[in-house]
């Protein structure tokens, strides 16, 4: 029983890794910069083209870790202090998509797809 179970887990992990690899293999959509500094997102409103995928390049310039979170975008991404993280976002329908720093909820913003 133990063997079957660990084989199952191994399969799940392998599948996820290859899926993630496939997801990153596509060629480059536009990069949109977003900074976290002094408990604020800069800018706090990000304009993007609707119906086209893009990459959010999030740089945390503050001294503590932040977590970029958007329930609508299904993204929860820790950005350690001083680091830059790329988050691929799928094509969005026109509309506003709020996000926040889950570690510091005063820091909020939104993506506006139009």
């Amino acid at each position, binding site marked *: 029983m133990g063997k079957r179970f660990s084989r199952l887990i191994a399969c799940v992990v392998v599948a*996820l890794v290859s*899926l*993630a690899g496939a997801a990153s293999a596509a060629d480059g959509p536009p990069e949109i910069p977003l900074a976290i500094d002094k408990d604020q997102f800069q800018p706090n409103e990000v304009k993007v083209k609707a119906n086209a995928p893009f990459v959010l390049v999030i740089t945390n310039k503050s001294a503590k870790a932040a977590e970029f979170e958007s329930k609508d975008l299904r993204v929860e991404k820790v950005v350690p202090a001083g680091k830059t993280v790329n988050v691929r976002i799928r*094509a969005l329908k026109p509309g506003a998509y709020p996000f926040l720093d889950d570690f510091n909820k005063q820091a909020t913003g939104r993506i506006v797809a139009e």
Partner: protein
Amino acid sequence: MGGTFVVTLREGFEAALIMGIVYTYLQKIGAERHYGYATRGGLLGVLASVALGVLVTALSGPLLDLGPDVIGLAVIFVAVVVLTWHGYWMQQHARAMKGDVQRKVDEAQATHRLWIIGVLAFVGVFREGAETVLFLWGLMTQATSPSGWAGATGAILGLAMAATLGWAIFRGGRHISLPRFFAITSVFLLLLAAGMFSTGVGRLEAMGVLPQSLTAWDTSFAVDDHGLAGGFLNGLIGYRARPSVFEVGSYLLYLIVAGSLLFRSGRSTPRSCAPRGPVSAHAASDTEPGAASLRH
């Protein structure tokens, strides 16, 4: 201080619930001396969380972009498998239990499967663990000013509160009759796993692994995802204010498949009536004094 308190309370909530249930389960099946499985699983979860937290701050580039997501997804799906397995096992166990003699036999049979308890404790702690570690770490570096100290204190109190909740479940769970405990926790773990499964599917959608589906409904005007109530409902039953069709579909699919596996499997066996005997006798003895004589 209040803000950081809520963050760690919410992050630690799920882990505390799972640990509380796991210890109570071991106590209920008379396997107190196997608490070590849960303890070791939980401790390994803490160690893995610290390790991942350190790793994330050391990584950069594509590894940082994708690594934590892949690990996060793997943990979600492993958690779903283990929760389902445990729920199924608990149901079988509840049916098989006929008395103290049977109980000891069951325990011996069950012991070699107790490592699943360890895995459950591990994923329960590890799922939000690395995040919590990074959050606390950030606060500690800020703890040089009075407001920094307040933030760090709030975070520690939040974790302590979560741990107290887990402990309360353990204390309270001991007084609930065994069948009722099994019934409540089976349903709870089923909903928890369904929520995780649909979260995983939503992530796969966002990553572009699955095609994108439409939004099924919007209840953000009533209970918002980012609010306190929405956060706890999300942790408990996988609530989402604006779920996609795939998320709703996978939630229901999981509930139907796992629910029928859990709640139907035992009833079709020929022994189905016998194991239910002591269950109803126990339940009845809570309310009817005369029913106690049934046990002798």
